[in-house]
């Protein structure tokens, strides 16, 4: 056991860590929102950040509208 280990490897990014751990990108986005809320101190109901789905962007919204119109 060394007295002290000097770490020389660069600090991994969030994406690198997620890839190494096998966490999906969408879940990383949710975790990012959760952690930002915690760090900023507005974590009253933090579970919301992990359970609510991401709001659809304009492209997805148009595609969904077309799909419902066809059906």
């Amino acid at each position, binding site marked *: 056991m060394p007295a002290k280990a000097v770490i020389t490897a660069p600090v991994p990014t969030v994406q690198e860590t997620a890839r190494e751990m096998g966490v999906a990108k969408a879940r990383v986005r949710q975790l990012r929102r959760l952690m*930002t809320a*915690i760090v900023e101190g507005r974590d009253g109901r933090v579970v919301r950040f992990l359970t609510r789905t991401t709001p659809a962007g304009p492209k997805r919204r148009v595609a969904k509208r077309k799909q419902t119109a066809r059906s």
Partner: protein
Amino acid sequence: MASRRRRTGRRPRLPLNTAFVNVPYDPHYENLFIALIAGLSGFGLIPHATLEIPGSERRLNRIMGLLRRCRYSFHDLSRVELDATPPETPRFNMPFELGLAGALRQTLRRRHEWFVLEAKAHRLGKSLSDLGGTDELLHGGTPGGVLRALTNALARSRHRPTVAELEQIYADLVTAAGAIKKSLGTDSLYSARPFKELVVAARISARQRIASLGRRPRRRRRG
């Protein structure tokens, strides 16, 4: 021929920032487990544990595979006492995995550094006298103690976190752990998914809490 070529070929480069965490998976240890994840993430390491690998493989093979992949390993021998359920038995898993790490260090060409964590001073000399001369990292059974022990064991030339920053990451993770458990519908962190998500959450928190990581590199002035 092919096997010879394989033998002489270059070995794949393994990550230098991975750490194997060998701890008791019991509910009383959960806060120390979170502290260990927070501390290691603060130092830029990615924690790994046996619980993240699917259970189809033989447990010993899983442990060996993970140990081989990791540059550092942290073994907590603080729970060596007898358990309450009859017949009373001590836990041999952690000392056994420490032995495997020690053997790997001797046999592997690649460097592997292992650390022993303990709650009480001088107990290691009594429980595992083969490690005589090894200075264990004492945490006193508290999350703050774990963070201080990691600060004593690890060093970085750049982005060196302070104990206060590590404590902030730990506090963030305690809140996040509750949310992750609730969203996954589980009451324990000791399974693959909560553990993996906690590691990612710790990285996000570390990126935000460690001041030097948030700072952008200075641009050189021209002329």
